């Protein structure tokens, strides 16, 4: 995991999360903005998956438990699609909040992944 990239990803997830929560609370249904922003978070996670596969091969190995890391990463990558699916089926303002909650959860999980990779002792 690359720390700088991880911080950017966490930043994206936090901003998108807060945006969607606010949009939902003011009564917006899931629309191109909230779903597009959530897709951006998913894109960041796909980038992270590629990085997590390549990094150990080029000498950037995790200090912590790689299994735990991947459980977090795979679960995180499932959250935005599930939230978007929810938003497409159930078109209410609260689904927009759900999109935001998913992105905020992704931010927390990315933070935890970074900890596992950089500071957790195996």
């Amino acid at each position, binding site marked *: 995991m690359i720390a700088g990239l991880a911080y950017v990803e966490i930043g994206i997830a936090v901003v998108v999360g807060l945006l969607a929560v606010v949009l939902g609370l003011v009564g917006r*249904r899931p629309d191109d903005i909230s779903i597009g922003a959530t897709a951006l978070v998913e894109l960041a996670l796909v980038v992270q998956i590629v990085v997590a596969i390549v990094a150990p091969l080029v000498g950037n190995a995790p200090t912590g438990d790689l299994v735990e890391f991947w459980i977090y990463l795979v679960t995180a990558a499932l959250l935005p699609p599930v939230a978007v699916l929810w938003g497409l089926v159930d078109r*209410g303002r609260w689904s927009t909040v759900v999109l935001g*909650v998913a992105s905020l959860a992704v931010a927390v999980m990315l933070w935890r992944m970074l900890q596992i990779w950089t500071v957790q002792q195996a």
Partner: protein
Amino acid sequence: MSALPTPPQAPQLSRRARGFGRVLIVLYGLLAIAATGRSVLQLATDFERAPLPYSLSALAAVVYIVATVALVIPRESWWRVAVITIGFELLFVLVVGTLTVVDPSLFPQKTVWSVYGMYYAFVPLVLPVVGLFWLRRTRPVPAAAAAASGD
């Protein structure tokens, strides 16, 4: 909000699964995933090292899963299950939280409820309070009179 028609065959959901309740279900679902993941990892790797906190993690996972299910299922009896599991969650986060502050050596390994859920941004402390308020608001109507003295 009122301009758009509601879907023709809206699925039969409990009152507690509408509106804000959906966010609550998602939050409980996330905690269920988090607690289950942590618990499976702990039980599979080194249960002997800390049986008490690891058993608590497993218990937390079960509580969160049942609470999530109870929020979704529309049957009235499940409203009570939701109250019991979420009340249980509140009780445990307070008891375990206090114990971990008073005597940290009791719980050498973290649980979701350690230090009032500090490692989970205090979500385990705030969520049951919000959840119980929500359940009060969405109490099943026919049972209102009967349950008024019971909880």
